[in-house]
């Protein structure tokens, strides 16, 4: 049974790695958000695997998954709100062109 | 075995529905017309537009058909006649039908045409209007049944159908279901008079036949869902349970087809405004009323 847990955890880790790469390498705000979504998806896989194989008797694990899903939705909402405001003001949501945000 | 029976029932309903659709548009009642027009589609040239996103263009009709059929898998025809009696059936049907949106966006983006693209994105706006009105009435249904299992939901209506128990929920769900199936007057993504066919505009031949089949299947799926959630599913006197399910499903499906004939297409902005300022508060009221009833009755 441990094999299934390991498979799930490795998948989560790889998704996390891809997400980190995406969030760091992309220049567009929306693409960066996609990277963050992948990071969170990796986290979700781990959470579900932990709940299923280690603590199926405690439903706090599932609860935590719901909270992470909420975070994903909130991230989308706020991210797009900021993206629209930025695009309206500057005509771009590219990171390379956001030098004015540096302190 | 169940799989074969349910799929045959689905296919039969779609065929009857196509006959009725042909009857309302041409005025001729012909049992072979859907088959003939399907064959005619196969015989026609399948035109592929210039520089399409080929993957999306090809995948969209198939995805659409698959999700429409997937929705049926959790809907029972009779107490034991259901493909998958999932513990989360009422949620699963939402999940499956959410991919109708994905299929339409793919079909809109794929052909690289303006009408199709606007149609596809229009459906995204439409989803924002109707999505809550699909989920919230189902919540109230699940509250009464104290379960998400579709067979339990039907069983909970044995003494009193949900259409009587929560008429408000039924009205909201029926309207939202029509918007989800983009039947007139909610046919914004295909809008013949506004977008010249919208997402359908660039599809010809086999692909168009699949799209039309998928659209009718979606209507049957949603009608079956309405029957399971509100019209007491298989309950009814004299006839066997499966017959009642089929009769009710067809009646709801035909009414979905006919309503649109007598109404002009709704304005996008109005749809959005009414759904959010009127529909969602009413859905909340419905949940509160059902909650009170459940507490008082039990």
């Amino acid at each position, binding site marked *: 049974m441990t094999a299934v847990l390991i498979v799930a955890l490795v998948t989560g880790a790889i998704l996390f790695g891809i997400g980190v790469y995406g969030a760091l390498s992309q220049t567009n705000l929306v693409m960066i958000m996609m990277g963050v979504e992948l990071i969170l998806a990796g986290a979700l896989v781990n959470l579900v695997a932990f709940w299923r194989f280690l603590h199926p008797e405690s439903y706090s694990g599932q609860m935590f998954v719901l909270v992470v899903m909420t975070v994903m*939705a909130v991230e989308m909402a706020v991210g797009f709100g900021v993206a629209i405001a930025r695009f309206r003001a500057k005509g771009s949501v590219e990171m390379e062109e956001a030098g004015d945000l540096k302190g | 075995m169940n799989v074969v029976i349910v799929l045959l029932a689905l296919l039969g309903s779609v065929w009857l529905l196509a006959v009725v659709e042909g009857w309302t548009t041409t005025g001729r009642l012909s049992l072979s017309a859907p088959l003939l027009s399907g064959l005619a589609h196969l015989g026609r040239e399948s035109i592929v537009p210039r520089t399409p996103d080929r993957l999306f263009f090809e995948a969209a009709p198939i995805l659409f058909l698959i999700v429409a059929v997937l929705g049926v898998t959790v809907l029972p025809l009779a107490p034991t006649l259901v493909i998958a009696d999932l513990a989360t059936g009422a949620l699963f049907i939402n999940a499956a039908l959410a991919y109708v949106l994905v299929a339409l966006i793919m079909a809109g983006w794929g052909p690289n045409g303006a009408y199709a693209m606007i149609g596809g994105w229009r459906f995204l706006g439409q989803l924002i209007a109707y999505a809550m009105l699909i989920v919230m009435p189902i919540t109230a249904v699940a509250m009464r049944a104290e379960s998400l299992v579709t067979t339990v939901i039907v069983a909970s209506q044995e003494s009193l159908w949900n259409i009587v128990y929560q008429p408000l929920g039924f009205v909201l769900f029926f309207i939202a279901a029509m918007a989800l199936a983009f039947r007139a007057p909610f046919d914004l993504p295909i809008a013949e008079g506004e977008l010249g066919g919208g997402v359908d505009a660039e599809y010809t031949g086999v692909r168009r036949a699949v799209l039309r089949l998928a659209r009718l299947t979606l209507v049957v799926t949603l009608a079956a869902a309405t029957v399971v959630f509100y019209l007491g599913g298989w309950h009814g006197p004299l006839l066997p349970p499966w017959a009642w399910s089929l009769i009710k499903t067809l009646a709801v499906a035909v009414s979905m087809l006919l309503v649109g004939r007598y109404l002009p297409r709704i304005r996008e902005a109005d749809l959005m405004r009414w759904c959010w300022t009127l529909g969602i508060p009413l859905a909340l009221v419905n949940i509160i009323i059902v909650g009170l009833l459940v507490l008082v009755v039990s």
Partner: protein
Amino acid sequence: MYAQAFFVAIFGLAAIGFGVWVFRTSSMVRSALALLFSQTAVGCMFLAMQTEFLGVLQIMMMATEMSIMAIFMVMFMMDPGGLGGMDMTHQKRFSIGAGVIAGGVAIAVALLADWGPVTPQAPDAAMQTRELGMELLGRSMLIFETAGITILTAMIAATAVAIPVQTLANGGDKEDSE
């Protein structure tokens, strides 16, 4: 058990494959939909791990979320079809390094840690749904409520940020700007 391992692995591979495709394609709509299918595959992994409610929920939520992602991609990219072949990346080496290290460390932990005894039997799906509901509206009610309020706040804040600044001149016709 082998069946479970097989399905978890298959859906895991699909999730990874689509995840890689997100950053490999130059068409923005494709990359948003690749992310959608990656998330759907994650949802299917949940199902394979007998977590039915969360799996179906994940599959349902991501369909709409990622479709909205797609329309924003089209809005904010001047070349959404990817026909121009623009390069949309920067600090490549650093990101690849960071991604590999982050993933590698996580994998190492997954492989090396002692996870202790694994429970072979999961509670059945109906039971899970029931227990999760009890958890949500019992012990974790406050967290659940907070999550709801957070989403509401985020919605309002995002809308407030996103709507155009109303100047005094056109402040009168609010109907049009809805």
